[in-house]
C-alpha cells in the first residue's frame, strides 16, 4: 500500500470526515473533537491491514498520516 493509498483508505474509516480532507501531511489529531473512538479506529485500521497492533505510545509518537505510515512500514516485515 503506497502512502497515497494508505491516506485514502485511512480517511474512509472515519464516518464524519469529508472525502479528500486528509493529505499525507495532515495531522490526524487535528480532527475536530479528536477522541478515544478515533484512536480505536486507527488501531483497528492498522491491525486489519498490516497485522500490527499499535500501542498507546505508537499513537502518541505519530501526528501526521505520513508518520503513521512510516511507523507501520518500519514494523511491517
Amino acid at each position, binding site marked *: 500500500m503506497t502512502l497515497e493509498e494508505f491516506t485514502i483508505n485511512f480517511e474512509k474509516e472515519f464516518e464524519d470526515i469529508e472525502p479528500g480532507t486528509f493529505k499525507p501531511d495532515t495531522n490526524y489529531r487535528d480532527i475536530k473533537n479528536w477522541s478515544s*473512538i478515533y484512536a480505536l479506529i486507527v488501531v483497528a485500521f492498522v491491525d486489519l491491514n498490516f497485522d500490527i497492533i499499535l500501542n498507546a505510545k505508537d499513537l502518541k509518537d505519530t501526528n501526521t498520516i505520513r508518520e503513521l505510515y512510516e511507523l507501520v512500514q518500519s514494523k511491517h516485515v
Partner: protein
Amino acid sequence: MGSLIRAISYHLPAQAYTNDDFFDSFPDSIINKQNLLKLGIKNRYIVSSEETASDLALKAALNLFTEHSINKNEIDFLLFCAQEFDHYTPTTACIIQNKLGLNTNCGALDFNLGCSGFVYGLGVAKGLIESIGCKNVLLLTSSTLTKTFHFQDKSSRFLFGDGAAATLISSNNESKIGNFVFGTDGSKSDKIIVRDGGARNKLNESSFEDIIDEYGNVTSNACFYMNGTSIFNFGLKTVPTLIKDTLNKNNYSIKDIDLFIFHQANLFLIETIGKKTGIPNEKIFNFMESIGNTVSSTIPIALAEAIKTKKAKSGDKIFICGFGTGLSWGATIIEL
C-alpha cells in the same frame, strides 16, 4: 456426570440513559456521533444509588424462578459474581441465600470479577457439579459499575450499563459444557481500575481530584478508570488466540460452531475481532444496542436473547468468551 445450562433470566434497572441523554450531557460529542455509533450502543440502564449489585441479582433470580418454573429448593449452590458487595463481611451470597429463601444446605460464595466473570462462574459451576456432585448451581452475575463513574467520564458513560443475570447450571447425563481456557495478566491491573477506596489505598482528599486524559475523559482516583486504547489492544491481541486455543482444546474449528457470543464490550471491537479471525458475521450474535456493556452479565443476557429470538436452538454449539478487568479472560464452548 455432566452439566448443562438449564435456564437464564436477567433484570435491568428502570432508569434508561439513551444516546439523546448522552449528547445532552456531552454536547461537544455530537460531532463524533457517526463514529460513536460504531460502538453499537444506543441505550443503557442505570442503577439508582440506593440499589446494590445484590438487589439486581436478586431480581434476576426471581425472574429465573418465575419464567422457567424453577423449584428453588433444588438449588444446592449459589455463586455471586460482582464488584460491589453489600458489606465487608459477611459474604453477600449468604445474604442472597436468605433473601431468595434457598435451603440452608446450599453452599454460597462471592467472587469478584468483571467482564470475564460469567465464564469463570460457569467453569466453577461445572466443577461443582461434575467433580463435587452438586445438582443445581445458581450463578448470579451483577454489575452496578456506573456508580463508580466520574460524571464527566464520557467514554465510560457511553459504553456501560448496569444489570444482572441469573443462570441455572444443572447436572446432566451428558456434558454440555466443554473444556475451558483461562488467562490472567495482573501486570496490566492498572488498565481498568478504581484506585482508591479499597484496602490498598484509602480515600483521601487527592482521591477526588480530577484527572483528565489525552482524549478529554475525566476521572479521579476515587472513580472508575479504563485505558480504552490499551483494553482495545488487549482484546485484539488476546481474543483471537483465546478463540484458537479454545477451539483446539475442544477439537472444533470455526465451522463446527453455530454461534459466537463474545463479551459485549462494544460492537467495533467485536467486528474487528470477527474480521481478524475470519468468523462469518452471521455466526456472531450481539446484544448491546439497547443495554450497553453490562460487564459480567453481557454473555448470559446475549445468550438468553439468542435463545428467545431462536438465533440459538437446542443442539447448537455456542462459543462464549469473556475478557476484561484483571486483566482476565476465559472461554469455553457450550451445547444447548
